[in-house]
């Protein structure tokens, strides 16, 4: 498998040039940020189609709101804030749809086959799907996208202490449910 998307910082001049109307700069921003954005969305919403839609929607919003991006701000937290909101919207829509049309057995929409491969990924996704949205989001931002807690606070608007608690709880659940799976595999 190719190397994972890196978390190296975006050249700060790119968002500024894009803000100034430079389309090439915006195109470069999209190219650089797309893989990480897709990865986050994929693990938040659980299927590729919804994830791609959320990511596309996010970049269109980024483009239209570049005027509000502070010149001294960091781009990724700003991007992730919009993306996280889009993902939550997708999840809300899905939940409402499920509530409207289903009674009794609700098919497990949160269990995707994102990667046709080892059951391990499926298991991870199953567990992620059981986490409350805010815990899943905090875990992914911290441990997968490797944002600092201060940046996650900027993304979510939540206090640092509450964030650490969310991440800790997510880790506890993942550890508990997946340790068994790993033991079984050995």
């Amino acid at each position, binding site marked *: 498998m190719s190397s*994972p998307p890196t978390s190296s910082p975006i050249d700060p001049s790119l968002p500024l040039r894009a803000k100034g*109307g430079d389309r090439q700069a915006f195109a470069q921003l999209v190219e650089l940020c*797309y893989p990480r954005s897709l990865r986050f969305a994929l693990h938040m919403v659980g299927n590729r189609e919804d994830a791609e839609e959320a990511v596309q929607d996010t970049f269109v919003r980024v483009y*239209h709101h570049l005027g509000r991006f502070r010149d001294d701000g960091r781009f990724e937290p700003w991007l992730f804030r919009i993306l996280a909101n889009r993902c939550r919207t997708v999840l809300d829509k899905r939940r409402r749809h499920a509530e409207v049309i289903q009674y009794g057995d609700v098919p497990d929409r949160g269990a995707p086959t994102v990667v046709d491969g080892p059951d391990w990924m499926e298991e991870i996704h199953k567990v992620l799907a059981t986490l409350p949205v805010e815990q899943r989001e905090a875990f992914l931002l911290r441990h997968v996208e490797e944002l600092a807690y201060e940046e996650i606070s900027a993304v979510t608007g939540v206090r640092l202490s509450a964030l*650490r608690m969310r991440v800790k709880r997510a880790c506890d659940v993942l550890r508990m449910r997946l340790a068994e799976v790993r033991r079984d595999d050995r």
Partner: protein
Amino acid sequence: MTDERDVVIEAVRGTLRASVADEADPRAVARILSAAWAAPAPSRWRRWLDAWHLPVVSRVGAAVVAVIALAAGFVARGVLPNRAVAEPMAVTGEFPVPVVPASDPRSSAVSTQFVFEAPAAQSVALVGDFNAWVPTAAPLVRLPSGVWTVTVPLMPGRHVYAFLVDGARLEADPRASAAADADYGRPSSVVMVPGR
């Protein structure tokens, strides 16, 4: 608080991080750029408004007013000279594209991607019967590989088009069938867009 990572979390982290390839899918990027550029890029005026968080005049409204003025201009026959060429930061394709985007369920327009290889070019534009052959309506975006691309919504049917390279050289699409040109004798290309 101690670092929560341990063997299980590390394994989860590793798997999730590796789940997406490093390189962006160019088609996805092209779709995003087309969607974002379906409305004009922010003008200086808009950016000034944004900075003050003031509401922005509807783009459709502005276009309608401009067209009314345009019609009045024809009546008067006293047109003013063309404005100066756009500054680097000003907008091209100023007015909203008239076709309703394919993402709108009411529309029968189909998102159609065009691709053109021109690593040495500075600019490539898609011109055709669907955008009145106006060079600023559908600029292509250059990907790092030197391939240019744009995705536009097209109504089902037959469309004739070409690529305008560096604002001067009109080229047919080597990947498409040729269209004869009874009026101007400059061959272009044909795309048949299926109905939905």
